[in-house]
């Protein structure tokens, strides 16, 4: 097999991404325009000025809503090719910059929360198959009973109540660092920036302030991932493959590893799906802890009826979700080569 043939599976998948992005952006364009209601009139309602036809016309041009739908689409496509999604009505900055400036901080907290949940899931899953202790197994099953997305901000509020209001162990939920200080800006990822600039005092502070939001995310999302994992483990344990491994005398470590590896792909899929829903969850967490990331931008855009920002905001977030889906697919194809495109198992 040539190099190309061996590596075709992931290249094909990665190449599809730009197409997906383009199709989605177009879909979002139509979706937004198909909604009942007119963004221009919503925006007019928020502006305290006499409503003249001129004002309305100007607004329409600023929003890119003038002309026929096809004109708009052509203009939208043209801008998209230049990487431009319009200008914010509120700050008059390019929407892409507005969103991209805030995205790293949001992604950082999501990765910490979701990554933590993933690690906890793996550990509990291993304990689940390693030890026959009924109490432990029942505890793990019980945890999966809570598998529901109790809103993450509700969990965080209980955390604040206990650890800040009552016990006073953790700092107030008012930003990433103590008030009055500002964050260095290198890559946009706060923790990374603090490491890069050698600002270790701030790093400690930030880490301390991350305990509650990240803990709330782990608490909220672990049961969901664990449900998938334990379900997969139960299923794989009952499989003939596992029985045969035992019967043929494979080593214990290998059996544990093999069972976990075969069960993990559904967890990875859920991980990818949650990544998306967690951007939503992060919006609430950010607003609760005063972190000011994407959440702040979205709320501001709604309150000022900032149409271009809303449109760009959604498209960029979904592009990140699509990237995440590609990553999930690639990880799963790597874990299980049968999922690679063009592989079909021979019928016996």
């Amino acid at each position, binding site marked *: 097999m040539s190099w190309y043939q061996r590596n075709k599976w992931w290249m094909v998948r990665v190449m599809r991404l730009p197409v997906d992005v383009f199709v989605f952006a177009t879909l979002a364009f139509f979706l*937004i325009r198909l*909604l009942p209601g007119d963004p221009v009139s*919503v925006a007019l309602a928020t502006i305290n000025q006499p409503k003249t036809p001129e004002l309305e016309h100007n607004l329409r041009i600023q929003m890119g809503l003038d002309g026929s739908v096809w004109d708009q689409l052509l203009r939208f496509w043209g801008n998209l090719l230049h990487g431009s999604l319009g200008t914010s009505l509120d700050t008059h900055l390019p929407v892409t910059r507005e969103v991209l400036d805030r995205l790293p901080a949001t992604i950082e907290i999501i990765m910490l929360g979701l990554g933590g949940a993933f690690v906890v899931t793996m550990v509990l899953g291993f304990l689940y198959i390693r030890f026959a202790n009924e109490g432990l197994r029942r505890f793990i*099953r019980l945890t999966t009973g809570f598998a529901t997305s*109790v809103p993450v901000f509700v969990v965080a*509020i209980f955390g604040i109540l206990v650890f800040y209001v009552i016990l006073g162990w953790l700092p107030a939920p008012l930003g990433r660092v103590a008030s009055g200080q500002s964050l260095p800006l290198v890559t946009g990822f706060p923790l990374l920036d603090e490491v890069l600039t050698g600002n270790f005092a701030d790093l400690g502070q930030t880490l301390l302030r991350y305990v509650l939001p990240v803990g709330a995310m782990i608490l909220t999302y672990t049961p969901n991932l664990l449900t998938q994992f334990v379900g997969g483990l*139960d299923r794989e344990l009952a499989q003939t493959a596992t029985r045969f491994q035992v019967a043929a005398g494979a080593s214990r470590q290998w059996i544990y590893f093999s069972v976990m590896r075969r069960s993990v792909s559904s967890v990875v899929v859920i991980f990818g799906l949650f990544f*998306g829903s967690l951007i939503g*969850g992060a919006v609430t967490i950010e607003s609760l802890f005063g972190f000011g990331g994407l*959440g702040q931008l979205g709320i501001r855009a709604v309150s000022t009826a900032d149409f271009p920002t809303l449109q760009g905001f959604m498209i960029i977030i979904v592009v990140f979700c699509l990237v995440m889906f590609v990553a999930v697919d690639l990880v799963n194809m790597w874990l299980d080569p049968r999922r690679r495109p063009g592989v079909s198992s021979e019928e016996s």
Partner: protein
Amino acid sequence: MAETHVSAVLLPRARAARTHFPWGGAAAAFLPLIVIVLVAVLAPLIAPHDPEKTVADTRLAPSGEFWFGTDSVGMDVFSRVVFGARIAVRFGITVAVCATAIGILVGTFIGLSERSRGIQSALGGALNRVSDYIVAIPDIILAIVVVGIMGASDLSLLIAIVLTLVQAPIKLTRMEVLRVRNEAYLEAAELGGESRARAAFVHVIPNSIGPAMRNMPLIFGNCVIILASLGFIGVGVNAPTPEWGYMISSGLSDLMLGEWWETVFPAVFVFLSVLGIAYSSRAIPRVWPRIAAAFSTPSKKRKNLA
């Protein structure tokens, strides 16, 4: 028999159906849902005060008169929390019914048009792709955008939430339809002279709506979550309406000062109702076959030839 036993036992959730009618199990499964709906329906009877009026001093701690205390404008937190259930249930039921109905219809259409030819197939394929992309939009983000464009109103909230939550029943129904399409009984129906349309309505749809129907309580729960999250970030139901998420966020600054009741009680209610609904949505499918079996027994006797 041996094989069935092994799989039945190794998979912990598959259990042997009991023969007697499971009143206890059914009641336990439905209880959380029933309690929530009852609180919502009977809210005017339960709540001692008007939820949207100032009835006392601001920020009173919980007492005999005001069980959950009063908030920053002197409204009774208990009454507001109880009426909050009303908003949640009203939205939840509307969304669950709409999303499931639409989802089943669209899902069946997509499932049946796959592998067929012509315009129907193209349309079904396009719908399927669109639904794939909408799944990629985080639910709260989609709601924010819809509300931002349409302006804040109950209708825009409803559209936003249905748009995100309808995707699950679409996918579930489609999967089932694709499975049912391959079942041998459809061939048998064709050989028995049944027309395609009749087979679709008599065999395909009844055999494929199960997962979507079982998903309904889950949609209810998710709707409560999204509604509360939107209220919390200030994009949801308008101000004085007693909505849990909004109540939580408006009490936050007081929470930091130790006046916890305004935030914590609605949070507890969100927590309990979401958990309760999740419990029901998991427990109902488990008891459902037994309930169905218990009800189908008489018809079995009636149809007997002997």
